[in-house]
């Protein structure tokens, strides 16, 4: 096996605005928000929830895009650990004004549309709007909703902020000044960490390693089998901010270059474990419209920019949004320990609540998602109290092949119905080989009660979970047999009335 590079360094290098920073002796699990507010006394960025849900702490991270320019994305500073800034540029609300003190166009638009009332959420909104501006601006309401779904406002009712988004416009991708600015920043960032070795913080309070290749990662995990693998931190961050846990050591996979690609081969997608939802979105959307729509509704823009598909699987949550869809699609995952790789069906990875088929020192390297065969229809439904940025009560994903009125193939997977994401095998069996009609539908619905005994909690009662799961089969039936009937309130297939 390849030996990991031995070059190590113990300083976190990043650009704070345009200012080069090299930090030592930072607690590896200190959040970016706390660093800003407590160490730097930059209090523009606010703590609203400390769990990545309200967006008051929204900041922008920039990193070289590999093509000589920069890519920027919003994240929640409250659950982002400081060492993950390594090699990046951090922008906060304090960086937006011009040198002469005048407001940035997005700030000006917010003032003019009366977009702030109490003002506490405002810096976060401004950063999400600034990201839209960096991306060229946006006029479409749906796209603005998506950009702002991770920012909660309790005062305005959002109207003036939506107006500000439209009014602020955006910077042209071909603007020469902006192009040069981005290319200069990319050059600086690249120079800062090029050949500088792996970031390894080995402090009394805890250790943190940021391998740069999957071989390094594999070796580190063999050496530290009890390490916590950190990707986007959208789950692990809360262990720190809410459960006050010490995590030691942390192995961060966000800098592992060869885990960050999505490849297509032999009719299947291979998604590296470090690929964020945002980066996987387009490719997953090509598999089926509903997969794309599902990814659009996971968390918020900030969460999708940080969180990974791999993390959604590896953390074993019973209510992660991607696993049921991927199981219905027949996805497999590659697990690796040292140089040894094995492939398992995703559905077999989830053993029981809190337990997955992953040995110590082993990690999820990639996810293989086959494209459905021609003729297979794929539908996914996410049910939650709120459409955007809500954790799922019930998620149903169906892959069905109906030929001449008969169900040839049927895979049904659910989230929120059991201790793990799980296939409804009795329900599947009730349909496969049967005519696709109301009688078989009813039989499949009845079979669901033998597949699952869901529980009641704050998201939904067990009765609702079962009823809605059965009704989603009805929805599948209608959508596959009478597509002219409106069945959707949101998404690409929303009812147009």
């Amino acid at each position, binding site marked *: 096996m390849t030996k990991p590079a031995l070059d190590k360094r113990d300083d976190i290098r990043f650009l704070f605005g345009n200012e080069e920073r090299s930090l030592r002796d930072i607690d590896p699990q200190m959040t970016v928000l706390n660093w800003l507010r407590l160490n730097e006394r930059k209090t523009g960025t606010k703590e609203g929830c400390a769990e990545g849900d*309200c967006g008051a702490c929204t900041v922008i991270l920039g990193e070289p895009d590999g093509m000589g320019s920069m890519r920027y994305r919003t994240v929640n500073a409250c659950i982002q650990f400081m060492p993950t800034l390594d090699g990046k540029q951090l922008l906060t609300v304090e960086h937006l004004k011009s040198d002469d003190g005048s407001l940035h166009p997005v700030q000006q638009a917010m003032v003019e549309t009366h977009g702030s009332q109490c003002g*506490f959420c405002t810096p976060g909104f401004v950063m999400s709007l600034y990201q839209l501006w960096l991306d060229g601006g946006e006029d479409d309401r749906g796209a603005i909703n998506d950009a702002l779904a991770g920012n909660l406002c*309790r005062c305005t009712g959002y109207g003036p902020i939506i107006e500000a988004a439209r009014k602020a416009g955006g910077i042209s991708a071909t603007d020469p000044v902006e192009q040069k600015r981005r290319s200069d920043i990319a050059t600086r960032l690249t120079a800062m960490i090029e050949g500088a070795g792996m970031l390894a913080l080995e402090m009394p309070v805890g250790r943190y390693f940021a391998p740069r290749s999957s071989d390094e990662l594999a070796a580190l995990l063999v050496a530290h089998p009890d390490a916590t693998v950190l990707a986007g931190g959208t789950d692990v961050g809360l262990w720190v901010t809410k459960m006050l846990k010490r995590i030691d050591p942390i192995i961060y996979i966000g800098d592992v270059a060869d885990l960050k690609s999505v490849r297509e081969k032999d009719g299947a997608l291979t998604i590296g474990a470090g690929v964020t939802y945002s980066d996987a979105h387009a490719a997953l959307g090509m598999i089926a419209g509903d997969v794309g729509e599902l990814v659009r509704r996971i968390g918020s823009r900030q969460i999708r920019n940080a969180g990974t598909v791999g993390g959604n699987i590896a953390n074993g949550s019973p209510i992660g949004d991607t696993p049921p869809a991927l199981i219905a699609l027949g996805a497999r995952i590659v697990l690796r320990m040292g140089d040894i790789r094995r492939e398992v069906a995703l559905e077999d990875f989830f053993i029981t609540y809190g337990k997955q088929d992953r040995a110590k020192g082993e990690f999820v390297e990639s996810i293989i998602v086959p494209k459905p065969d021609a003729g297979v229809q794929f539908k996914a439904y996410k049910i939650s109290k709120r*459409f955007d940025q809500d954790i799922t009560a019930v998620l149903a994903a169906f892959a069905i092949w109906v030929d001449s009125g008969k169900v040839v193939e049927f895979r049904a997977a659910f989230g929120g119905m059991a201790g793990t994401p799980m296939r409804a095998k009795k329900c599947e069996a009730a349909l496969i080989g049967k005519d696709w009609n109301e009688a078989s539908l009813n039989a499949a619905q009845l079979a669901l009660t033998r597949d699952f005994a869901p529980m009641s909690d*704050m998201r939904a009662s067990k009765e609702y979970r079962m009823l809605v799961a059965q009704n989603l089969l009805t929805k599948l039936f209608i959508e596959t047999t009478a597509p002219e009937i409106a069945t959707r309130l949101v998404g690409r297939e929303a009812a147009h009335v």
Partner: protein
Amino acid sequence: MSDNASKAIDTKDPGELLAPTPGLSGGVRSASKHDSGPKHVAGEAVYVDDILEPFGTLHLAPGAATIAHGRITKMDLSKVRSAPGVVCVLTADDVPGVNDVSPAHTHDDPVLPDGIVQFYGQPVFCVAAETREQARNAVRLAEIEYEELPAILSVKEALEKQQFVAPPHVIAQGDAKSALARAKHRRSGVMEIGGQDHFYLEGQITFAIPQEDGDVLLHCSTQHPSEVQHNIANVLGRPANAVTVEVRRMGGGFGGKETQASQWAALAAIVAVKTGRPAKMRLDRDDDMVMTGKRHDFIVEYDVGFDDDGRICGLDIQYAANCGFSADLSAAICDRAMFHTDNAYFLGDVEIRSYRCKTNLVSNTAFRGFGGPQGMVAIERIIDEIAMMIGRDPLDVRIANYYGTTDRNTTPYHMTVEDNVLSELTDDILASCDYRKRRKEIDAFNAQSPVIKRGISITPVKFGISFTTTFLNQAGALVHIYQDGSVHLNHGGTEMGQGLFIKVAQVVAEEFQIDLDRIKITATNTGKVPNTSATAASSGADMNGMAARDAAITIKSRLIAFAAEKYGVAEAAVRFVPDRVIVGDVTELEFADLVKQAYLARVSLSATGYYATPKIHYDRETASGRPFYYFAYGMACSEVMIDTLTGEYKVTRVDISHDVGRSLNPAIDRGQIEGGFIQGMGWLTSEELWWDDAGRLRTHAPSTYKIPACSDRPDDFRLELWSSGRNVEKTIHRSKAVGEPPLMLAISVHRAIADAIASVGNYKVIPMLDAPATPEAVLNAVANVAKGMIAQSHDAVPAAGE
């Protein structure tokens, strides 16, 4: 009028200015921007947690009880005390004065409980450490044992066991019992209405800085600095003049920082005085949601009688409110629910009973609308049910029940409605929202759409303006003019985002005829304006605007007298015009020049102002009087789509026409209306509070408690400040209060969802939709309506589930 000094200044009524004064920047009626806007967007607006901490600042964290009700048998805090960074640990024994922060002097809100735990999550001790992280970590080392006592975890159970925090109250008019017996039709039912977390984005926080003599200065995020001052003085065992409370701004309040700030302020103050070090108590979001009160959940039982036209001729209604473990403001909140049983309708013979139930849950408190919304959502459901029973459009039943202008205009509390604009307002919104045409379109759509159903509803709001506790209706202000003509403005109202500061500043700009940017808006401070009331009950601009105007007039009168004497003209000849003062035909001065001359002539350029709302009175013994100075009105029409397979829904269009009188600032008022509507929509739809069987709140963070997000705002949102808006009373520039009333416009969303559900049963089965209408609640109602259709008999409209 800009030259109102040319006649005697009317100190009681600034009159009816119809448009902004030409040449004046930022007077009343102008859409001036929020004064903090440029600072908000740059991250430069300073909230309490942003104040630079002096050396040695301590950080506090509360330690919570892990049972709902019981006796503490052992509290071993030794490991907490010896944890890294811990400087001191507080228990009930460490409260130097009175261990109580109850707002209405009911002595049931301990800073830290002395032996008895009253709800799951109640703070029972508090840690102060060098860092916040150290304090939070140390909290976990406590060893506490309890002897559990039976816990009452629902309002239903409290009512059965007659556990109350305050005595029941009855308001009645006529003889409801006989009227019901005589009624041609009757309908009875039960509605459960959920509570609501404020979810201000900035959580509770106080930063206490010790002063000499054992005094303390508190930077506190509160709507009621005077109450915090008095409470903390009591807690410290010191006179009120030992405590100063300052509030520059809050990151949202919504009622949640009216009484709920005191406990955290008290803990910070005790630590600051005890250690001599600055002390900050900032609650983590989860702690905030668990430990602070919310909107009261209600169970409403009703029995209504009505005629063939749906006109109500008798109503017996009972409210049982979940007050939580202590009284807090529950008595006044429940009163306001009773006062709004009528909403916009003449109820005739009516009996309203209210029970203020005591449970082992967090003590509920003020929240925008203050009980009014619960009363109003119930009567709006009743109206819809009447409409279904007689097969009429609900709008027609609403109109049939509206208060009259000359008769049918007495409220259940015997107040005559003198400013009724309901018919006019209804005509105007009907002309613009096409309700009847859309109703037909919806019927056609629903007939061909088996899964997605549409619904529509139009509902009115009539909301009483004034604190119903009469003595609270007073306000003070302080105005200085400096020698350069710049103005320092201070008043007792607090800024929580609602735009109060800018509105009051506009009033002062108008009075002095100077541009708004000459006026410095300063932090509310109990050392400047004392004995103030909470910024609550939508009263902020009405009362503080008047008080500030009063102060300005005092100084202005001195300037007029000075100018008249110096230049030898009649006082009536001294006129203030934009940035200038015309002194008869003798001279014309810049405002700043006149100020400078007056200073040199030893004229006082500082004044206090005061205002007490006229006309109001209420006798609680007889449950009659005039608790409200006037009413604010509005109407909303909402349209929704529901998914009958999942219970999900989407609000697709909203039309609002709202009466703000003559607006002080139309932009600020629009913001209040839109924001209030969306907040009310959240209360009635996605915002569900959920406690487990142990009495533990499980929806204690935005991950589990879902306020509306950006996409929940309807794409088609049409908001008008009602063009005929006016106020018959002499309010500040004839404007109307706007903070709370718009929240209740969102009842139209709840009713539109019910309407869509009813379409499943061809409007023949009443959907007993409670609040909040979560997708689960909607799907259950759909299922029940479907069952009701099957079970339907032909002689009556059955209610689903009955």
